């Protein structure tokens, strides 16, 4: 006798237990702590905070642990938590010009006011696997200088003073900031929403899109005007007290691309901008974001928009890895009702095809 497949509930419970066991791994190996993740896998935490759009190192570390190191899964966990948080309002815009920079490089000028600061970077390391790191490695104490009081103005502001780069469009006073997690997205979208989408977007997707512009699919002649990483203050305007209250400081990476110039008979030529911003130290992400932001401004700047990276609907609809991974992976869910319906149709069409051939065969048989 046939018994329909049952026991899904038991199967799920068992699967979850097995997952928890696999997550822990060999229990003779010490359990990893959130501090260890936060301190020693810091760039993974930065990425999860950025794409999870929630600045909380501890929760991001927890998500990475819970996700067994699968960063997209960790981003998903953070997003699902973030979605339920109440909103008190928007912070004041952070002043990245006043950033306490730990790293700051410009590829457009050899020297800049405040100086180039290399900071912690993989850039000039040789990519040789280092067996010394395998265990018990104690690094040398880093060389430290006194904190500099020299201001570090943004390179784009320096260019802007001479009108060499377009001014950044200013929002009107009192204009509210768009939020695509609170309002449905409509096309064409304004730049605030585009930047939000890109800031939350998948690093790999943005990297590929940005890369494609460099290879000629929507080329926009970029220069890395400046990349800076460091701490900024976050302030919140409390309506009750009437002034901005400091909430604390966060680490940010900002990339300002300086791109091919525009100009016309009525407008003096000047460079254009592409902008990238992310939590923590995320240079690849912010550089890619700046390239794609600039590519998406094609329409606004009156350029031909034929390349994928210039296609707002294409980029914004596919940049989110939580959306993408969900829909790709949903193919694992049962589809047998639909498949059954397709199967029925296909069998019918095949039968009609065979029947249509049959009269000839019967005639031949009769002859």
């Amino acid at each position, binding site marked *: *006798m*046939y*018994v*329909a*497949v*049952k*026991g*899904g*509930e*038991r*199967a*799920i419970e068992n699967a979850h237990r097995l997952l928890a066991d696999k997550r822990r791994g060999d229990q003779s190996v010490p359990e990893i702590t959130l501090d260890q993740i936060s301190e020693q896998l810091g760039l993974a935490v930065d990425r999860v905070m950025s794409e999870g759009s929630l600045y*909380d190192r*501890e*929760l991001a570390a*927890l998500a990475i642990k819970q996700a067994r190191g699968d960063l997209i899964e960790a981003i*998903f966990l953070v*997003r*699902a*938590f*973030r*979605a*339920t948080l*109440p*909103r008190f309002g928007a912070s004041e815009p952070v002043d990245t010009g006043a950033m306490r920079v730990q790293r700051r490089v410009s590829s457009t000028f050899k020297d800049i006011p405040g100086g180039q600061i290399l900071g912690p970077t993989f850039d000039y390391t040789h990519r040789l696997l280092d067996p010394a790191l395998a265990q018990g490695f104690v690094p040398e104490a880093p060389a430290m200088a006194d904190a500099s009081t020299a201001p570090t103005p943004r390179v784009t502001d320096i260019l802007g003073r001479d009108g060499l780069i377009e001014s950044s469009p200013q929002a009107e006073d009192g204009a509210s900031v768009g939020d*695509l*997690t*609170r*309002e*449905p*997205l*409509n*096309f*064409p979208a304004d730049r605030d929403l585009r930047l939000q989408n890109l800031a939350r977007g998948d690093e790999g997707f943005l990297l590929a899109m940005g890369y494609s512009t460099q290879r000629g699919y929507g080329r926009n002649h970029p220069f890395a005007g400046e990349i800076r990483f460091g701490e900024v203050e976050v302030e919140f305007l409390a309506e009750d007290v009437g002034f901005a209250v400091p909430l604390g400081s966060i680490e940010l990476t900002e990339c300002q691309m300086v791109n091919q110039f525009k100009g016309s008979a009525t407008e003096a030529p000047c460079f254009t901008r592409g902008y990238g911003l992310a939590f923590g130290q995320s240079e690849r992400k912010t550089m890619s974001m700046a390239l794609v932001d600039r590519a998406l401004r094609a329409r606004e700047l009156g350029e031909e928009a034929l390349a994928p990276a210039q296609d707002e*609907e294409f980029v914004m*609809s596919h940049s989110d890895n*939580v*959306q993408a*991974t*969900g*829909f*790709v*992976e*949903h193919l694992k*869910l*049962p*589809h*047998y*009702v*639909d498949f*059954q*319906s*397709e*199967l*029925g*149709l296909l069998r*019918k*069409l095949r039968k*009609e095809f065979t029947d249509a051939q049959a009269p000839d065969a019967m005639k031949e048989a009769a002859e």
Partner: protein
Amino acid sequence: MNAPAYNFAYLDEQTKRMIRRAILKAIAIPGYQVPFASREMPMPYGWGTGGVQVTAAILGPADVLKVIDQGSDDTTNAISIRKFFAKTAGVATTTATEDATVIQTRHRIPETALSENQVLVYQVPIPEPLRFLEPRETETRRMHALAEYGLMHVKLYEDIARFGHIATAYAYPVKVNARYVMDPSPTPKFDNPKMDNCPALQLFGAGREKRIYAIPPYTQVVSLDFDDHPFEPYRFNAPCALCAAEDSYLDEIVTDDKGGRMFVCSDTDYCESRQAAGHHGSLSAAPYKEKAQGGING
């Protein structure tokens, strides 16, 4: 650490109000896709986040919830969603169609006729019926606004020219209230007639695509077709092997590797109720109660 704490039915009240406004608009314009600010949910996109948000927004403490996937209460995703609401809302759950006030479904409409005090919530992957004919949202929205559906008919024409039939077996497009062409979600076309003039409210939620749409009770829903190639629901021509039903949609079960097949109701509640009422198919020799005890789940 901020210890996570969750509201009744998971979503915060502000979000629920936003979703309810979208639902009201959807009911006011039958078949029209209302954009809404879909939230990230604790299950992946594509696994029912749209349906879950709609259910969370309409669920009250007195509701009785049923969740099905592929017609069955026992599939893993149905269990997972049912447990989610049992945990976050503490509502009563059921597998009996007639006892439920809210039924969330993926890919099927229950066989038991729905009533006025019920809401059917569909999980929708791609809400746009024109999406595979025209990939651009800006263009499809214009086509809906102008009721310009020639392209959809071109597709149906092409099917007939190539196959002799409209070759759409599921997610078969319908016209709602003589105005909007709508995707019924990937239900088999067998279920399409159940949407027409249905006493229950039908709500459709697409989380990843951020759209909600609705069919109010007793609304005309017509499957697209040609006068000389009328819409035909498909059903495999056999009685259910377990309950002998002749009017239910059947799943095909492969019983061995020598071409053995059997056909049983996809709607497990319908099938079990019929067996309990004494209907027996060719392969269900044992009375219902024994069979249920014989199952892994008791």
